[in-house]
């Protein structure tokens, strides 16, 4: 094929991941005992299209694997198989496995064969478990195109057909009339068969009608094929798997084969056989794929994936409208400018005002494109809650509210990990065991509510649980015990609750598998602060806790304070500024002759002289008693930046410095000022760290 399929890969992977998500949510919503056949159908369809797609793109491993899932689902769909909890769990596991496989393929890494093999074995066990008879009957069965057959062959130990003389198969292939209409070309099938072994075809044209009745889109011929070679039935069926619903297919061995069990199969053309044999020889399979990391590390996989975004056509239409308006205004202004006379000033001003309005609208619409519903993040949590609550033997329902709240794409990507941590915490520490809940007079079923809503230019995400809440006296005791606070400290309730965000503080009495993985609440808070947000906590003992995260709507724009250092202009993010003060000589103190502090009311704060730390030589050097101190908060510590002058506050569009350049310490990005020049945006926590060193 001369078509470069790789150009469609991105779309294929996106569709697969969407399909997997659909399967996952479908599986989770399955109510054992009262099965909604529509849900099963949805899951089946998703599996089917993944299989189809991966077959087309030549990802045989995925296609093979999905085929087994599909078979299982097919039996469930037809009611031949009970939907049981273990079966659903196995399917959920295989959804994960598929996702892993697809990610590896997408990143052009080797598929982790060992893990695939384990999942595949589990699937096959499940498949074999209930439909035992068909599985045993299958290897010799030659009839029909029941999808169970090829799978059952695979589930058996490796069996090779060896014949005395000629090995091979006789294939009777009678396509139905509509075969061609479904886009299948028999010639292609034959070509593939020919790759397996020596193929002889025999065409049967007796059914062809007279020319007058002939419909060129109908397939009126059938074939008798002879395929010579050491080929498994499965390999042949695999080729016909695309047309199995559109033809009558009969396979029979050429010579009566003797069934011989071979402990080590000879290399066969399909890679699937290698996979299927893997459970029997896990030790063999592993070194073969030694190059691939055994544990796939999702964080390592993430950056490679080129990101794309799906946008509502509505949004694009609005955008096109806006651009149209801008173009019209521009041509109007052009006309005015061509023959400009002073009496046109009014017109010009009106035009400029219009242009400004359109530009602003345009900016807003473009920003809107980056907005995604938060359901992209939320949709992963039902699964998490399902898995963990099963593991902990707790009964918990998750309620999602406001899934359609839109947030910036970057926020969506970065908020996931902190949220996972917080929800794990709620599951593990928040919600009590069912018995304890009943004893406390609460419903047995615990509830975690995940809410998202907009409030005043921010998005608020709340995690509300009705669990045991936090014991303030316990928190206080713990903090004193760990030496984090002084015994005599007088703290408000809020301050006590915020103790959990301190590094080195863990409320868990014992570390469990679920929490206590070394990612503390301090990391959660730091992550959220790095997104320009903050996190609040409200908790009532015995009634539950609420954790609220406030995040800016977008990361592409920030409110900044521009400051002058020498001739240079820098932007300080407004969120980190506490206040700005003119310094007087009296406020400054040298510490050990080197560091400097200044007294702000009752506190001594360290000073960072921007001129020194950024090595600014231009402009007049400020004397020690001139300039402005901008008091900022970074990483929970206060600090003063000494700058020459405050310039003004403005919204700035954040541009990446790394796109064409590189990371620079103390700088988080750059922006373009009104005059077209570039100003750097200060990375406040980074600078605080830099000054400490």
């Amino acid at each position, binding site marked *: 094929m001369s078509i470069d399929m790789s150009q469609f890969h991105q779309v294929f992977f996106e569709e697969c991941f969407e399909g997997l998500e659909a399967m996952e949510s479908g599986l989770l919503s399955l109510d054992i005992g009262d099965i909604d056949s529509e849900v099963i159908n949805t899951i089946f369809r998703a599996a089917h299209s993944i299989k189809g797609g991966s077959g087309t793109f030549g990802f045989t491993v995925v296609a093979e694997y999905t085929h087994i899932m599909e078979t299982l689902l097919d039996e469930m769909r037809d009611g031949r198989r009970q939907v049981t909890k273990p079966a659903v769990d196995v399917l959920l596991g295989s959804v994960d496995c598929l996702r892993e496989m697809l990610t590896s393929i997408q990143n052009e890494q080797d598929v982790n064969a060992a893990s695939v093999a384990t999942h595949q074995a589990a699937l096959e066990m499940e498949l074999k478990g209930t439909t035992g008879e068909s599985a045993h009957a299958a290897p010799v069965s030659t009839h029909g195109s029941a999808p169970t057959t090829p799978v059952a062959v695979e589930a058996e130990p490796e069996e090779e057909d060896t014949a005395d003389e000629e090995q091979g198969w006789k294939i009777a292939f009678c396509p139905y009339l509509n075969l061609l209409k479904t886009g299948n070309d028999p010639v292609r099938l034959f070509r593939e068969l020919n790759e397996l072994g020596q193929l002889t075809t025999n065409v049967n044209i007796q059914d062809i009608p007279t020319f007058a009745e002939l419909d060129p889109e109908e397939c009126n011929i059938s074939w008798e094929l002879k395929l010579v070679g050491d080929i498994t039935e499965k390999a042949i069926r695999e080729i016909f798997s695309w047309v199995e619903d559109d033809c009558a297919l009969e396979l029979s061995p050429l010579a009566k084969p003797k069934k011989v069990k071979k402990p080590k199969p000879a290399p066969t053309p399909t890679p699937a056989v290698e996979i299927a044999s893997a459970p029997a020889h896990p030790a063999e399979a592993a070194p073969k794929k030694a190059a691939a990391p055994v544990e796939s590390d999702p964080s390592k996989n993430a950056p490679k994936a*080129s990101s794309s975004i799906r946008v509502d056509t509505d949004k694009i239409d609005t955008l096109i409208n806006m651009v149209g308006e801008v173009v019209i205004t521009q041509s109007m202004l052009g006309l005015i400018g061509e023959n400009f006379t002073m009496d046109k000033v009014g017109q010009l001003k009106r035009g400029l005002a219009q242009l400004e309005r359109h530009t602003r609208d345009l900016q807003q619409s473009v920003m809107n494109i980056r907005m995604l519903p938060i359901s992209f993040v939320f949709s992963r949590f039902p699964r998490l809650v399902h898995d963990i609550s099963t593991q902990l033997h707790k009964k918990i329902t998750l309620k999602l509210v406001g899934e359609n709240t839109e947030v910036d794409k970057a926020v969506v990507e970065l908020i996931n990990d902190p949220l996972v941590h917080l929800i794990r915490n709620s599951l593990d520490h928040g919600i009590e065991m069912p018995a304890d809940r009943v004893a406390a007079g609460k419903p047995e079923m615990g509830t975690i509510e995940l809410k998202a809503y907009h409030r005043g230019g921010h998005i608020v995400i709340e995690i509300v649980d009705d669990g045991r809440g936090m014991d303030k006296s316990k928190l206080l005791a713990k903090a004193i015990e760990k030496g984090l606070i002084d015994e005599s400290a007088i703290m408000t309730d809020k301050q006590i609750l915020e103790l959990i965000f301190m590094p080195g503080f863990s409320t868990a009495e014992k570390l469990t598998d679920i929490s206590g993985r070394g990612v503390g609440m301090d990391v959660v808070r730091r992550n959220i602060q790095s997104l320009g947000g903050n996190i609040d906590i409200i908790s009532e003992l015995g009634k539950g806790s609420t954790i609220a995260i406030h995040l800016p709507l977008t990361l592409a724009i920030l409110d900044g304070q521009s400051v002058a250092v020498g001739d*240079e202009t820098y932007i300080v993010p407004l969120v980190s500024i506490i206040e700005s003060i003119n310094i007087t000589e009296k406020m400054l103190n040298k510490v050990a002759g080197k560091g400097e502090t200044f007294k702000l009311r009752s506190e001594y704060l360290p000073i960072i002289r921007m001129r020194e*730390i*950024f*090595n*600014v030589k231009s402009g007049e050097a400020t004397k020690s008693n001139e300039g402005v101190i901008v008091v900022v908060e970074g990483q929970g510590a206060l600090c003063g930046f000494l700058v020459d002058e405050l310039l003004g506050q403005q919204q700035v569009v954040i*541009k*990446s*410095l790394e*796109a*064409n*350049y*590189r*990371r*620079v*310490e*103390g*700088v988080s990005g*750059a922006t*373009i000022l009104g005059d*077209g*020049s*570039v*100003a*750097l945006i200060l990375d406040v926590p980074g600078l605080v760290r830099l000054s400490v060193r």
Partner: protein
Amino acid sequence: MSQENKTPAALDAAAQNNTEATITIQYLSFVLGKEEYGVDILRVQEIRSWEPVSRVPNVPPYEKGVVNLRGAIVPIIDLRERFSLSKVEYTPLTVVVVLQTGSGNHTRIMGVVVDSVSDVISVDKLEIQGAPDFGTKVSNEFINGLVSVNERMVMLLDVDKLLTLESIDLNES
């Protein structure tokens, strides 16, 4: 012939034309002091006049700063300083050549300051000589080869090496 040092674009060209006897590659040549250098013309995005940059703190002195190139933040590198040549004052004739590097989704653009742009030269690939080893005194790591045009020697620069070097600096520091 130092074929393995060719830029990807040049290799592509080579692949397309490998049946022909002569392969011509076009280079944009520019001057630094008395030396003449050439870069693969397919890597040149545009040529601009020097304009003041915004300094970036705490980077090597040859990284002059960043400018706004139609909304993208683009770093500017002084090639004289990069090659440890004597510094000169920037004049209105000082030129910034905007080069691009990388492939696929990861292209980066960067401006290099040169004294002036002189010519577009067509070079027969067979005429390119490998860069001589100057020992440790002069680094020839960016030099792809030498070519003689009208009795002048032109050093052909490897754009990718030239533009990725600062990330190595970053790792070292």
